């Protein structure tokens, strides 16, 4: 739904209804505040009833997000938010399921689920708080920290390459891929709204600052104070940028759009692309299950009369 139209409609649920009263224990100036606020504003804009939302988080600072959004919330295990979210969506396909986690959570310990959730394409959203460090354990390098970098709590510089999550997501098969910046809340709200509206698994990587442990990728660095211009490059500022695959059956178009997205994802240094990298509409896992089990089109699994089923035909097959 277009942002402006949604904003104009009368609101049944107030922004406050998406916020809990739980004390937020992130450090002052943490980029997570921007992401939390963006999630709450996006849900408010979309006017999804809070009881129709499940926020599923991993472990780490980002994992606490589930406690701060007043919806059904499961704060799970390190790296396992996606499988839990998958189970939740399979159980109730009428819920809006949003999984959140950090970069260590998603691209390190949870890498297998990051890959395979892309293959599955359930209708849900995955937001990664990407700050390059493991904050809660005091600043070790995360999988996205580039080779040669040494944050202040690392004894030595990293000798491993940082992974490119956008490139991995393109390969894994995510049907909506975006990147935002935690301190640009307006754009981030718009990206989250688009991600949730996308039918299929949407993946949103968010550059996030950790003012305590990542002294390299700071607010000032992203703002480009040292080079006199912002390092954030908005994809949509390029009039030729069109990430949407218009014909999902056209392999040529898919390859062309993915190649362009891949190219943009490898821009580093002083140009960091944010925006929608890639979008395609493909049958979701939910749709395919509903084809096999038509009752799922009308009702979520949790509401189906599954109990005391007549299993006599199965015994008869064995007679």
């Amino acid at each position: 739904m277009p942002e402006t139209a949604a904003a104009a409609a009368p609101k049944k649920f107030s922004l406050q209804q998406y916020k809990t009263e739980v004390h937020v224990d992130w450090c002052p100036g943490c980029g997570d505040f921007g992401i939390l606020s963006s999630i709450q504003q996006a849900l408010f804009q979309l006017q999804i009833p809070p009881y129709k939302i499940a926020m599923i988080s991993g472990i780490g600072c980002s994992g606490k997000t589930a406690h701060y959004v007043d919806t059904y919330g499961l704060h799970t295990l390190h790296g396992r938010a996606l499988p839990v979210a998958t189970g939740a969506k399979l159980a109730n396909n009428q819920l809006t399921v949003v999984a959140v986690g950090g970069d260590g959570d998603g691209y390190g310990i949870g890498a297998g689920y990051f890959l395979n959730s892309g293959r599955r394409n359930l209708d849900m959203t995955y937001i990664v708080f990407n700050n390059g460090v493991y904050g809660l354990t005091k600043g070790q390098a995360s999988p996205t920290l580039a080779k040669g970098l040494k944050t202040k709590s690392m004894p030595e510089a990293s000798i491993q390459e940082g992974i490119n999550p956008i490139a991995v997501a393109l390969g894994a098969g995510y049907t909506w891929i975006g990147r935002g910046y935690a301190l640009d809340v307006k754009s981030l709200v718009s990206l989250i709204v688009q991600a949730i509206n996308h039918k299929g698994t949407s993946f949103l990587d968010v550059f996030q600052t950790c003012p305590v442990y990542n002294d390299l990728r700071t607010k000032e660095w992203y703002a480009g104070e040292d080079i006199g211009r912002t390092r954030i490059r908005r994809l949509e500022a390029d009039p030729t940028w069109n990430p949407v695959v218009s014909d999902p059956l056209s392999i040529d178009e898919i390859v062309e759009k993915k190649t362009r997205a891949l190219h943009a994802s490898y821009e580093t240094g002083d140009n960091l692309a944010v925006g929608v990298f890639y979008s395609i509409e493909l049958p979701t896992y939910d749709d395919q299950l509903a084809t096999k089990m038509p009752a799922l089109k009308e009702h979520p699994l949790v509401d189906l009369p599954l109990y005391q089923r007549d299993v006599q035909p199965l015994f008869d097959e064995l007679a």
Partner: protein
Amino acid sequence: MPTELSRREFSWVLGGPQGGGINASAEIYAKALTRGGLHVFANIEFHSNIMGKHSYYRVTAAPIPVRSHVDDIHMLVALDQESLFGDAAERKHYPSHTGHVHQVAPGGSIIYDADLKIDPAQFGRDDINLYPIPFFEVLEEALKQVGKGGQSRKYIVMRNTVALGASIGISGYDEELMFEAIRNEFKGRKAEAAEMNVEAVRAAAAYARSHFSVRPERRLAPVPVEQRKNRMLIKGFQAVGIAKLRAGLGLQTYYPISPATDESVYLEAKGPQYQCTVVQCEDEIASINMAIGAAHMGVRAATSTAGPGFALMSEGFGFAAITEAPGPVVFLWQRGGPSTGLPTRTEQADLQFALHPAHGDFPHIVVAPGDIEESFSDSFESFNWADRYQMPVVVLLEKFLASSLFSSEPIDMSKLKIDRGQIYQPADADGDGYRRHAITADGVSPRTLPGMPGGIFSTTSDEHDPEGHITEGVENRIAMMRKRMAKLQTAAREIPATSKFTLHGPRQADLTLVAWGATKGAILDAMSELEADGRSVNFLQIRLMRPFPSDAVAAILRGAPLTVLIENNYSAQLGALISEQTGVVLDHHVLKYDGRPFSRNEIVEGVRAALSEQRKEVMVSHA
């Protein structure tokens, strides 16, 4: 001393290369016997290999109940040389088996392919009957009858059917029952194959009758028509799968692993018609966490695995416990461990693992059924327990149970009722005041179903307050630990004794056997043989491992003058649990850890050796 069962049973083994169709043939044979009113128990042994290695299927049948196999083979049907003499010829070092000829009972018979051109002297036995049958020649003859002469190479797999026909001809069983079984197997589009196979049986039986005048003493006859009961042939994985559908399973997750996969694949095949979703996951960590996610949303969820997969589920298990998820139910099909171990063989070595599946102190339930009926009822009740006590449940099963075939009368489902536990009814849509982890006397906090207005909750793998938010406060921690653990006492109080243990036989006996799981059949069948030694015998079978029925078990064992523990593992894991829970140390242990199930003889001889030689521990392995 022979018992009625040992006099009347017939033990038939079909051996051949893996991938050669012996399963299908042996199961048709088992069906023909079941249709003739016989009780049937059949078990299979195979390698972790797709094609070529030795496998064998043993069908034990009797006109009276039989739940176990014996060492003796009354009729051996060998499709290849290896089934006769083992693989020492190919594997000079550490041959994996020595064939089955030495297991054939005196007076027993061997049917084999005459084309193998084996010198009868090679068998080294003058007390058995040899029936060399030219499989190809007979197959060719049969194919001619159905207008497919000259095509025996194309239908090579049908030499198995020739072997079945020869078995029928020599043992004197009713051919018509075999035809029925074949026609039942090959229906519809496969009807043509049915007639070809029928013809192969007919030709082989005729060949056997006309070429051999000597008949083995032990015969196999159907029971009189009026006494035949309508029994199905069911394997453990099917009983579990059907029970789960009956119980309302909504989501099954799994990662392929022997010997658990059969159950999930069965549910994949049958699930859609019952609106049951089955997801093949990327690993077992995903499997358990998906199931936990679904359980928290209110769907009955399960995952099936074996030891190596359960090892990966450890973390998720603790997560389910601390967040008080109503499940999942984990079906743990044990195989030989440790590590990859013996992927396709049986063992009971995961009991202590199932009891301690994750770090920290938390409540969970472990139940270990011993046969088809218990597999059905325990699988069903596990979902009630998961919902009622909001904790993960392990159903501990064995490869032996998964793949063995039992003739079974209809399962009585009348007592199995759905119990979804306490669901919170919000007073208003705001749901203010709802506490997902409210402190209650019995430890159980009513849950809501996400999607429900007024039911919003938060929960976390961190220690949390009643509202499900993180706290490290001391008083809360103590209250939460007590609340969660109290559920275990609640479960112990409410789960009926009939689900916890069974004392088979007299209340008091000279000798008490103690065991769990799928050794049940062999022990029950062995009891009359042990009684013949002059001692009265009873058998304490433990099913509920956690919460453990300590008082009842202690009372029984303290009153027992002589106890023998029987387990399919190295370290007597139930014995350790009993000692831990009751202080009782059992007198003798009969253990088996060769990856194969106990035969009835191994039970009898193991117990006798322990008692007569006064040995604390006896290891048996007749394989």
